[in-house]
């Protein structure tokens, strides 16, 4: 008796195990679809199964006291100790786009939440400027910040990125959050500057002070600001020979200012008001940072480290090919040491006196997980997905209404009457299912054109045409399903109603229909699913893009020139959602409907 009980329990556990296993297997592809839609296309194509972490770019390197400090884009501030270890002095992931300047032995870090002060010895930190009142979307869009102090004033510039726009543009932020903000010694905001104040743009890539003026690197060129008056006193743009779209980095040596952008470096002699381009070989791609001393300009490009010899006016080629492909983001020169921060979070020290050998190298933690909610935005941007979704929903709902109207009547007739021709009718309903849809494609298309020629009613590219075709095509199957529901409803009630003087139509309307409700809903869902899925007729009958349904539109993501798996999966998820919601809303009736009538057939 006992063993029997044990056996029963074991059996139960085994079956439960398999059932849960089957459920997981079934749901996994759906999960995978949603999961993939949040990954970056690169991760998908390269085959990273999980989310990868973003690189944590070293955006700033400063010296405070006698130690080098650096800040990363993803909220990490580290200090390089004398024993060549890295000490984390601040690590908050939500703070993005670190930039730093030192002030009274403390370090001021500007970031996406404001400006913090950190004492490098005690690690005490304080939020001096809080962007709390700035709307979230502006703060969220901060890519990087820049802070510089001149003459007791502090200037904070930002790169705001508006991802949904056509191009990477700066734009006017909220009140008091314009391109360049000015703070006094006690970090109280005393003003802000934007394009109205003659800045070239509100985007600020780099700022350096020559002791007197503030040099601002921007899209379009360089602005020179006099901190005494907060007025732009000079500007260097394409007209002056800065032939690149934007200036990304500035380095000042004595009276000479070096600026760099894309693949060019320029020397600006402010006193002589002269711009000269340094002769760089075309192999250098995007330059992100430069520092200079009296003999050399050190170029940090996205393809590594270059030394430009000012005396001979050439790149010292032997330092060109590094084994490691450094995508250099920031640089600092400190006596004989050149500090380099790379895009993937490596801090490197090169020793100038030792033939630029790597003297120190450390890797900081990675950035945040690369979860791309913006895939869903991109998807709506890239194609007119909204239109397709609207079309699909409208076409399918109207189709369901029409087909249900037709098929309930016909199904009822077949179940209640044995009229002459009923056999022929039911046989033909059954047999039209055996005709491949493909066969109809050309004739239906041409027939619609004939109809247009004769009557002027347009059926191609309109809802009317596609709804007409769909509802007629799906009717036979639904008649067939519905007939069995009506058969399963006892006829006695109807007969009683007839005796009470109810008309045929009244019986159908008031008695048969309500009784068959679960069946009708089940059929409706079924129809909606089939219509939602239809591809062949839609291809032919909906030629204009404003009438596309989802399956037609979704194909635009795969083409000769692109393969956006991420967007396809996002679109697939959105395409599945309406049917899923519909299904959940009526699933109770649906299952009841299917289980009630169909099987008794």
């Amino acid at each position, binding site marked *: 008796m006992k063993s029997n009980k044990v056996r029963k329990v074991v059996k139960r556990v085994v079956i439960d195990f398999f059932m849960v296993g089957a459920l997981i297997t079934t749901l996994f592809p759906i999960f995978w679809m949603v999961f993939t839609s949040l990954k970056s*296309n*690169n991760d998908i*194509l*390269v085959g990273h199964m999980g989310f990868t972490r973003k690189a944590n770019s070293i955006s700033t390197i400063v010296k405070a006291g006698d130690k080098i400090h650096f800040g990363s884009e993803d909220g990490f501030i580290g200090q390089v100790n004398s024993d060549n270890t890295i000490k984390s002095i601040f690590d908050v992931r939500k703070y993005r786009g670190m930039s730093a300047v030192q002030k009274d032995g403390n370090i001021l870090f500007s970031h996406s939440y404001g400006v913090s002060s950190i004492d490098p010895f005690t690690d005490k930190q304080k939020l001096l400027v809080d962007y709390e009142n700035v709307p979230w979307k502006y703060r969220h869009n901060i890519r990087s910040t820049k802070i510089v102090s001149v003459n007791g004033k502090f200037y904070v510039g930002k790169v705001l*990125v508006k*991802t949904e726009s056509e191009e990477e543009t700066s734009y006017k932020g909220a009140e008091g959050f314009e391109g360049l903000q000015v703070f006094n010694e006690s970090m109280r905001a005393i003003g802000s500057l934007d394009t109205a104040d003659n800045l070239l743009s509100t985007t600020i890539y780099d700022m350096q002070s020559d002791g007197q003026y503030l040099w601002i690197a921007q899209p379009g060129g360089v602005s020179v600001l006099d901190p005494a008056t907060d007025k732009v006193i000079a500007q260097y743009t394409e007209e002056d020979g800065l032939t690149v779209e934007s200036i990304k980095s500035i380095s000042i040596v004595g009276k000479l200012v070096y600026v760099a952008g894309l693949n060019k470096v320029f020397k600006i002699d402010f006193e002589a008001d002269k711009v000269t381009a340094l002769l760089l070989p075309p192999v250098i*791609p*995007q330059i992100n940072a430069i520092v200079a001393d009296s003999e050399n300009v050190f170029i940090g*490009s*996205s*393809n590594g480290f270059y030394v430009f010899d000012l005396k001979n006016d050439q790149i010292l080629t032997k330092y060109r090919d590094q084994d490691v*492909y450094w*995508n250099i983001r920031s640089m600092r020169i400190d006596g004989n040491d050149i500090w380099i921060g790379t895009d993937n979070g490596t801090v490197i020290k090169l020793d100038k006196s030792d033939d630029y050998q790597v003297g120190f190298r450390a890797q900081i933690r990675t950035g945040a997980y690369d979860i791309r909610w913006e895939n869903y935005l*991109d998807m709506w*941007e*890239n*194609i007119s997905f909204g239109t397709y979704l609207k*079309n699909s929903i409208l076409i399918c709902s*109207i189709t369901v*209404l*029409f087909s*249900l*109207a037709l098929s309930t009547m016909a199904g009822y007739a077949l179940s209640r009457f044995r009229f002459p021709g009923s056999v022929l009718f039911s046989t033909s309903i059954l047999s039209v299912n055996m005709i491949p849809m493909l066969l109809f*494609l*050309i004739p239906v*298309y041409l027939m619609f*054109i004939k109809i247009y*020629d004769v009557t002027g*009613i*347009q*059926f191609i*590219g*309109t*809802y*009317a045409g596609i*709804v007409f075709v769909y509802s007629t095509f799906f009717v036979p199957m639904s008649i067939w399903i519905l007939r069995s529901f009506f058969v399963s409803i006892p006829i006695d009630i109807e007969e009683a109603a007839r005796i009470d003087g109810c008309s045929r139509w009244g019986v159908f*309307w008031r008695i048969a*229909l*309500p*009784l068959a*409700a679960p069946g*009708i809903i089940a059929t409706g869902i079924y129809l909606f699913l089939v219509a939602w899925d239809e591809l062949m007729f839609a*291809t*032919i009958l909906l*030629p*204009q*893009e*404003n*009438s596309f349904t989802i399956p*037609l539109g979704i*194909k*635009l993501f*795969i*083409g*000769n*020139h*692109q*393969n*956006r798996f991420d967007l396809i999966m996002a679109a697939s998820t959105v395409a599945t959602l309406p049917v899923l919601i519909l299904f959940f809303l009526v699933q109770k*009736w649906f299952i009841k409907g299917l289980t009630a009538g169909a099987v008794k057939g």
Partner: protein
Amino acid sequence: MIEKNSKFIQVGLALAAFSMLSGSQAFAKRLDQAAAAPAAGSAKNVKVIRMWVMPNSPRPVKDLEKLLKGFEKTHPGIKVEVTSVDWGAALTKLTTAAISKQAPDIAQLGTTWVGVISATNALEDLTPRAKAMNASQIFLPASWSTAGLQGSNKVTSIPWFVDARALYFRTDVFRKLKLTKADVDDWAKFEATLKKIKDAKLVINGVEIEPLGVPGKNDWNVLHNVAPWIWASGGDFISPDLKTAAFTTPASKEGVKFFIGLAAKGYIPRSSLELNTAQVAAKFNEGDYAMYFDTPAQIKLLETPYEKGGAGGSLTAQNYDVALYPKGPKGRFTFFGGSNLAIFKSSKNKDEAWQVIQYLTSKEAQLSYAETTGFIPARKDCFEDPYFTKDPKRKIFTEAIKYGRTYPTISAWGPVEPILMRHIGIIWDNAAGVYGKYSPKIVDSQLEKTRKEVNTLLKDSR
């Protein structure tokens, strides 16, 4: 319970009945207005030109509409309505459009389709108009040769942009192995280079470098990928008299065997054989391959930032260059594709449509569209623009055009292409090793089958 349900159903059915009884014609009309209002012409005096294009750029419709804004400003009476049709369905849609009178006014046609769609007699004869604009002198000769059905002397389409292929390679890989552009100049050197890269087993940025990426059968370009190798070895697809197939000449076979043999020898990784061109390109951008062949549109992609779906800023984007196809025993060839614009006979606004075409083939519009899409303009004078002369990579493509060759624009080419694609696909599958060990004999037998089938087809269509 029943009562609750019945209410629900009554509402539903009342709705259904209402929509039915409200008169299907009025209903249809209302829906028409919703769905196809622009097609019917929204304003009295504005003529709407419907235009179908393929996804030539990541935002096909928006990019073209942006270009056409310039046109609509100077031609206030014309509005161009652009629809994007994916390549997979384009032929189906164009075919059905060709047999109806409801075709768009202007359609983009792949150059290889011009023959077959011209044969349906659905395209407007543009000969006089083309003569008036001196088109035969304006466009690249190779491109102009695709303007109509071969041998008919009729112009049915106007070249829009062209599309030549070249070899993209990683300069960092080449530098490391002390290779230069000259090392991919001809077949022997090309193979030696591939071997060198394979043997070196380089790992850059944690990715092991495979020598060459080539898509297998799951691609639109199956044929375009093989064609240059067939031509370069002296072979061809169809005999010069256009009457018989020519794949089984020793030269053609040699070309196919050389190219497919690269996969069998392991220079093309097996995994690349199930990808399509876009996927191979993405993997090249990711740093997986040292080389692969593609159109100039890829340059554009490598310049587009990562956030916008491009590969700009990637390691590859900073370390790549372009070279011509390797020279074969019988010369250097590249597949020369592209798209033409045609006006359908059924169009009611032919003059306006022609104005649109004229605008799109003007030098400014050609250059502007080339910059958005990355393709090469079909006009000769565009190549003098700094956009091409100053960019060493784009310059290669203007050079590649000189070696461009295309398929015969005969009406039978439409049906020939699927046959070739199928058999070359089977050859690729064999090279992938899914049917056991690959042997060059499979190439022979498949090409023999292809020849037979194409011959039947050519005989039939004459």
